[in-house]
Each structure stands twice: as structure tokens, then as C-alpha cells.
């Protein structure tokens, strides 16, 4: 085996040869001391060209090759494959781009010749210094863990388990389904939400490859593609999940009643309860923070009531450690809390005054909500006019959440399906409810609202006081009012009737409404934020989990192996959530194939422990958190799974301790000096 270099010059028909005298170049390069042979060809990338290339290498003992031809973007992989075919290391091949960078852009033939020669000589000098890199493979886990059991989590788990792969869903609350379970009808086409969700949950139940852990918290999560470790705390349920049949005897017996967070404080629940009727798993759970027995009191009511002897107060929290190859983060988002803004009168008396957030209002439309699905005021009467104020919190959050308009118009339509005298008015600035279905929804709200006439005189007289002068009253608005500035819309309340104040074309108006719904923006959930912190994921400006690339890789997080599904990325409607869920599952499936190892990038960086002073600069600049200080050895260690080979750490290290494979200082120096020569 000689260390000399075999050089191939491609004429690229006439694309190169018309400008550069290939025979002369070949003759000149043959004289170089590092060169074993120079061979030229008409069209090296063509089938016969590749055969020529492979034949020449088979019959020679050289290991290093230079191909002076087109751009490596076109054919580097072609010639790398040829290298592989003849049993040579593909990293010992370097291309000189004498077409795009030379013959196509240089006017004088002499100049093109000189440049082509310099580029080829630079490639020769460089390839002499190339290392025989190996393409490493490591074992990996192919299991997938889905964090968050809302609709996005459920859908990604169903798809990811499709090929028989083991999937675990981790859910904080006692049951799966998430926000969608709180709705009766889902916008834009107002389909029955429970009818969509229940069969999906049944599929999860029937699927032996999907393991569901509810009522749990994630204590720790770390790792990288192929190799994550998750420490889960399973909170004691105090109910034997295998024995419980969800009959609700314990719930009837329990003497403790507390406000229901699921219903946003609009109903009460017991200390032992199910999240909602028909939930999955349909199993009771004890809230140990309010249960008499677990807070030191005397009570045995549920234990006595349960026909299945399922109550089990000997349970304690348990820790389980899961290992998986990919994580799908579908932990959802939260709603902006309008309490922060005084302009909406969303104070302690808000409910009493019939002022709701739209999440609360959605519960009023749900058959298992606090009013059994009828949209009525707190006094039980049907509302005459419901005012929806859009964009609540948009200014504070700094972005349009994108999904609230559609949901709010859906609620507007749902609200009118009850009492014949109920009308709606939406206060908006921009309307984010597009597409065919969105437009149809708007039209439906409009049509339905036109059938309603509101005799608001009675209401109006009550709110006149306190509106201030110069405010014109509006009694019969259209279903949607575009206001001058949505951030200045305000709500006042008087004698149980509210007034919404706004301006259009510079004029102030006021309208009476006996129910006000605040359409609040979407903000990152605390759970998501905490998980993002633990995984060191990049965030958007608003604090949501950022896509690795918003256009090209919209369901990948900044950490390879962690995928994003649903509104953990920011407000999404149900179908968008499901699309991202499926994209996430697809990402996990294609990255981790059972029985196959994970191939690593060869062009990565490594730190020399002799030279490293543990200054941490590489840790700070690495866009992939691949460089970490090993505290025991006090040196930087670059994780070769995480490293993407950008070389930024190399340029940053003050000690010259980091080397980027295939782009070493020596290789670049050689290339630089030769490329400038001649």
C-alpha cells in the first residue's frame, strides 16, 4: 500500500475540458511527488465513468484519491460509494470543484487552468492528511416514551406502536385525553369530541404494546437519540387500578367536597373521584391532599363502600426508571390568566357576574360539564347575548396564539344551539380562522346569529350608568365586530349585566351582554417548561418548545430524538396537533429501527484531555449541548451522538484542545496554502 494519491480528472464532456487543457494538467500533476497516477475521463459520474474509476482503483495499491470534477454536492456521494465498492475508505477521497468554482465562472482559459491546478493540488495536499474515519454504530433503545397523554400524545403513541414497538405514555393527571375531553363539539366542523376521542382511547386500552402510566410526575430526564433515561414518580392512587371497575360507589360515599380544577372551579368533586365519566383508565383516584384519611382524619367511607375492595391506602409513591430511544413531548400548553389584567373585570366575582374564560365556557357546553351541557347563566337563566372578547393577553404574551379564534367561534356556535333567544357577538381585530373549514364555521356563526333578535333595552338600561359620556350604545350588532384596538376593549359590570366597551373608527361604543367570554391566549405550560429545562431544549421567544427548523423539521426539537407534538410548540387546533403527533411518531419510527444499530456521524469533534483546561467555552458555544465538562476528570468531553460537527467549539477553544474530524487545522492549513498557490 502506498501513501501516494491517485488523481482523477473529469472533463465533464466539455464543461471542464473546454476551458482547461486536461492533457496538460494531467502531465503536470504526474510530476508531483505525492501523485501515484493521474487518469482522465470524459464523464466520470456516468455509469462507464464509475466503472473506469473503480477499475483503476482495484488494480492499484493506492488508498488516497482526488477527484477533480464538479461540485461535491453533485457527486461526492457517488464517488464515496465507488470507494466503498472497491474496499477503500471513503474519507480518503477528496473532490476539487473545478467546474462550479472554476471553468463555469472564469473568463480566461489561462486563469481557469491555473485555478484548476491550484484547487486540485490543494485537494492532493489535503487528502494526504485525511484520517481513515470509521462509521461507528452504537446499540440503541427503540422504545418510545410519550410524555403527555392528550390527543397529541394518544395519536403519536398509536402510530408509534404500529409496528409492534413498545410505547409508554406518561400522563400527569389520572386519565388520558387531555383538553379535548373538556369539549362537546370540536371546531371547525363541530364534530362530537367525545365520539372522536373515546374510540382512540379504547385502541390504547386494547394495544398490548402501549403501556400507560397516569398520575405520575417526571423527576429526571436525560439522554440523547437512542438512549434516554426517565425517572418517573408514580403517585399513589390509593386505589388498586386492576380491581377498580369505575362504578363510582366510593365517590358517592366520600364526605369531602372540593372545587373541581377540571371544571375550573365551576363544580365540585369528591376527595376520591374519576376525572370525568368514561375516562381512561376508568379508575378512581384519591386526592391525598384533601382526603380525611390521608390528612390525619378519621374516615373509612370509600373503603366500606367499594364493592370490589379496591381501595388500598397502603399504597405509596413509587419510582420507576424507563429507558427509551426517542421521546415525544406532548405536554400541551396553558391559557393566559386574565386575572392579571384589570380591564376585563375578571376578579373574584367574575363567575358571579357571568364573566368566563373560554376554557371555562367550553365546560358549559359539555354534557358532563357543571351545567350538564346547557349554556346558562349562574342564575340558571338562558343568556340573551354572549360577548366573546378575543385576543385577551395577546399584547402581554407578545404573539397571536393562532388557534383561539377558531375555538371561540366554535363555542359561539355551540352556545346558540341551546336557547332560541341567545345571540353572540365576537370582538376581534384580526381573525385567525381561515381555510375552507374555518370560513365555513364563520359563515355558520353568522347565519345562526341572524336568526336571533335581542331585545336588549332591559339589559341596556342597567348598564348605562358608569359607561361615561360620549359612549354610543349598540343594541343589535353583527356576529363579529372589528374594533380599532383589541387591547383596549374593556368589560365593566353593573347589577348583574356586563357592558363591553370598544371603539370603531375612532368612536366609542358600549354594548350590553349578560355573559362575557374572554378568549385567552396560549402560553407554555409549567410542565413543558420544566421538561424543556431538564432536556436543555431550545425555546421560542414565547417560551414554547422550538422546532429544530420551523419549516423543514417542524416536529423535531433542538435535541435529536426528542420530538414535539401538539401545543407544546404553541397554540394548535386539534387537527394541527394530530398532524404534528403523527410527524413525531414518524420521526421516532424512522430514526430507530428494531434490530438495527444507530449509525453515528463520522465528522464530529473531540477534545484532547491533555490540552483542555476545562474553561467551558466550548460548552457555551456548542449549539447542541454536545460538549460537557466531566466534573470528575475536569475536562471537556464531547458526546459523539450529539455532536453535529459544526466545528464552532474548535474555533472557540483557547487551548487548541478540540479537533474537528475531517476539518483539522492541519488539513485546512494544507488546503489554504495550496489553494492560494498559483
Amino acid at each position, binding site marked *: 500500500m502506498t501513501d501516494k494519491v491517485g488523481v482523477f480528472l473529469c472533463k465533464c464532456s466539455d464543461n471542464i475540458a473546454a476551458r482547461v487543457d486536461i492533457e496538460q494538467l494531467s502531465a503536470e500533476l504526474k510530476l508531483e511527488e505525492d501523485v501515484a497516477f493521474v487518469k482522465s475521463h470524459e464523464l466520470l459520474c456516468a455509469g462507464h465513468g464509475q466503472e473506469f474509476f473503480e477499475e483503476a482503483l482495484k488494480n492499484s495499491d493506492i488508498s488516497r484519491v482526488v477527484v477533480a470534477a464538479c461540485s461535491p454536492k453533485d457527486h461526492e456521494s457517488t464517488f464515496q460509494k465507488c470507494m466503498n465498492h472497491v474496499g477503500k475508505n471513503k474519507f480518503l477521497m477528496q473532490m476539487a470543484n473545478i467546474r462550479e468554482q472554476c471553468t463555469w465562472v472564469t473568463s480566461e482559459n489561462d486563469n481557469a487552468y491555473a485555478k484548476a491546478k491550484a484547487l486540485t493540488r490543494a485537494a492532493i495536499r489535503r487528502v494526504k492528511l485525511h484520517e481513515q474515519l470509521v462509521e461507528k454504530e452504537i446499540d440503541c433503545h427503540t422504545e418510545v416514551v410519550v410524555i403527555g397523554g392528550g390527543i397529541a400524545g394518544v395519536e403519536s403513541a398509536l402510530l408509534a406502536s404500529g409496528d409492534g414497538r413498545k410505547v409508554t405514555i406518561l400522563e400527569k393527571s389520572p386519565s388520558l385525553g387531555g383538553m379535548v375531553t373538556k369539549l362537546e363539539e370540536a371546531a371547525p366542523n363541530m364534530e362530537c369530541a367525545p365520539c372522536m376521542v373515546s374510540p382512540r382511547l379504547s385502541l390504547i386500552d386494547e394495544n398490548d404494546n402501549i403501556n400507560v402510566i397516569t398520575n405520575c410526575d417526571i423527576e429526571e430526564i436525560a439522554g440523547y437519540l437512542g438512549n434516554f433515561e426517565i425517572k418517573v414518580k408514580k403517585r399513589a392512587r390509593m386505589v388498586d387500578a386492576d380491581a377498580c371497575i369505575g362504578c363510582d360507589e366510593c365517590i358517592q360515599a366520600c364526605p369531602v367536597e372540593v372545587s373541581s380544577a377540571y371544571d375550573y372551579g365551576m363544580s365540585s368533586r369528591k376527595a376520591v373521584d374519576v376525572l370525568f365519566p368514561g375516562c381512561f383508565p376508568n379508575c378512581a383516584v384519591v386526592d391525598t391532599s384533601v382526603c380525611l384519611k390521608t390528612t390525619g382524619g378519621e374516615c373509612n367511607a370509600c373503603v366500606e363502600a367499594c364493592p370490589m375492595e379496591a381501595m388500598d391506602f397502603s399504597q405509596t409513591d413509587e419510582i420507576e426508571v424507563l429507558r427509551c430511544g426517542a421521546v415525544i413531548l406532548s405536554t400541551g400548553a396553558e391559557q393566559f390568566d386574565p386575572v392579571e389584567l384589570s380591564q376585563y373585570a375578571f376578579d373574584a366575582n367574575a363567575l358571579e357576574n357571568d364573566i368566563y374564560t373560554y376554557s371555562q365556557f367550553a365546560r358549559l357546553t359539555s354534557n358532563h360539564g357543571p351545567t350538564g351541557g346547557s349554556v346558562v347563566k349562574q342564575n340558571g337563566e338562558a343568556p340573551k347575548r354572549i360577548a366573546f372578547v378575543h385576543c385577551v393577553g395577546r399584547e402581554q404574551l407578545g404573539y397571536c396564539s393562532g388557534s383561539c379564534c377558531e375555538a371561540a367561534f366554535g363555542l359561539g356556535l355551540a352556545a346558540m344551539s341551546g336557547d332560541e333567544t341567545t345571540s353572540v357577538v365576537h370582538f376581534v381585530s384580526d381573525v385567525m380562522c381561515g381555510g375552507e373549514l374555518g370560513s365555513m364555521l364563520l359563515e355558520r356563526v353568522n347565519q345562526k346569529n341572524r336568526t336571533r333578535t335581542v331585545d336588549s333595552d332591559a339589559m341596556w338600561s342597567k348598564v348605562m350608568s358608569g359607561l361615561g359620556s360620549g359612549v354610543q350604545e349598540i343594541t343589535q350588532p353583527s356576529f363579529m365586530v372589528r374594533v380599532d384596538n383589541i387591547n383596549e376593549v374593556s368589560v365593566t359590570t353593573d347589577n348583574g349585566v356586563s357592558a363591553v366597551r370598544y371603539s370603531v373608527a375612532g368612536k366609542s361604543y358600549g354594548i350590553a351582554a349578560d355573559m362575557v367570554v374572554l378568549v385567552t391566549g396560549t402560553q407554555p405550560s409549567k410542565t413543558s417548561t420544566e421538561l424543556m429545562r431538564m432536556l436543555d431544549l*431550545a425555546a421560542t421567544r414565547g417560551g414554547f418548545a422550538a422546532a429544530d427548523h420551523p419549516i423543514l423539521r417542524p416536529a423535531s426539537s433542538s435535541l435529536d430524538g426528542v420530538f414535539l407534538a401538539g401545543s407544546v410548540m404553541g397554540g394548535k387546533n386539534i387537527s394541527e396537533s394530530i398532524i404534528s403527533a403523527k410527524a413525531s411518531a414518524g420521526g421516532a419510527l424512522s430514526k430507530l429501527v428494531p434490530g438495527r444499530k444507530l449509525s453515528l456521524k463520522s465528522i464530529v469533534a473531540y477534545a484532547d484531555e491533555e490540552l483542555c483546561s476545562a474553561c467551558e467555552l466550548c460548552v457555551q458555544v456548542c449549539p447542541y449541548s454536545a460538549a460537557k465538562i466531566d466534573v470528575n476528570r475536569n475536562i471537556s468531553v464531547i458526546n459523539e451522538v450529539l455532536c453535529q460537527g459544526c466545528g464552532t467549539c474548535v474555533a472557540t477553544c483557547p487551548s487548541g484542545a478540540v479537533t474537528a474530524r475531517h476539518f483539522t487545522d492541519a488539513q485546512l492549513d494544507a488546503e489554504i496554502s495550496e489553494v492560494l498557490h498559483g
Partner: protein
Amino acid sequence: MAEVKLLTFVCNWCSYGGADQAGGLKIEYPSGVRLVKVMCSGRVDPQLILQGFRKGADGVLVLGCHPGDCHYKSGNYSAQKRMLLLEPLLAQFGIESDRFQLNWVSAGEGERFGKVVNEMYNKVAALGPLKLTDSAVKEETA
């Protein structure tokens, strides 16, 4: 104008593609423009640039993806920050600051690539060939 050499570092993802596109569009530029590929503009450190000047470059151009578009998310920002360190070094070696530039060219900007290299080349050509005076630089060249 004198013949000069403009050493141009291009990142693998955007500006190399921009140069390829300029080639495809047959946009002419002087043959003294010589490209060296790195994976990301973040790989280019001041030493590499000085090395270029020592080895015969009359000007050095570093091209990366546009801010926000770096294939590695933030490599070009690191490059940008680091270039602040370069200025005093250049001054120390008596290299006019006009002989160096950091710029952005995307893979779809063949025209822009041509414009940027031509303009930079002309600027360097107007300054003429670089005469390194500092002996330290020359020593290292040896």
C-alpha cells in the same frame, strides 16, 4: 488593477451552495477568488484567517448562512462574535481592515455570491497585494 488572491471560506450548507449556484448561472468572478470549505462559518477562527494572510491571501472573506439560518443554529453568531477579536490582531500585523470581511450568502443566492466576491475582490485589488511587514507573521510562515 493588480492580481490578488481572495481567500474565501464558505460553509458547507449555505454559502458553498451559493457558490455552486453562481457556477450554474455562469456568473463570472476573478480566478483569484479561492474557496475553502468548512462545515460552518463558526469553524473559522482568527488563526485560520491569519494563516490565510501568511500563506499568500491578499484578502480574506468568510461567508456563512444568513443570521438565523445557520445549519447548526448559532454557528454563524459565534463566528460574528469572534470576528471582533480579529480586528486588533489585523491591526497588530499591519493588515488593513478592508482586507477582511464576514458576510452571508444563502444556497439560493448565486447572484449575491457573485456580487459579494466581486465587490470584495475589487476592494482588495484596489489595496494591491498584501505586504506583510510584521516579522512575527513571517516567522510563522516559515
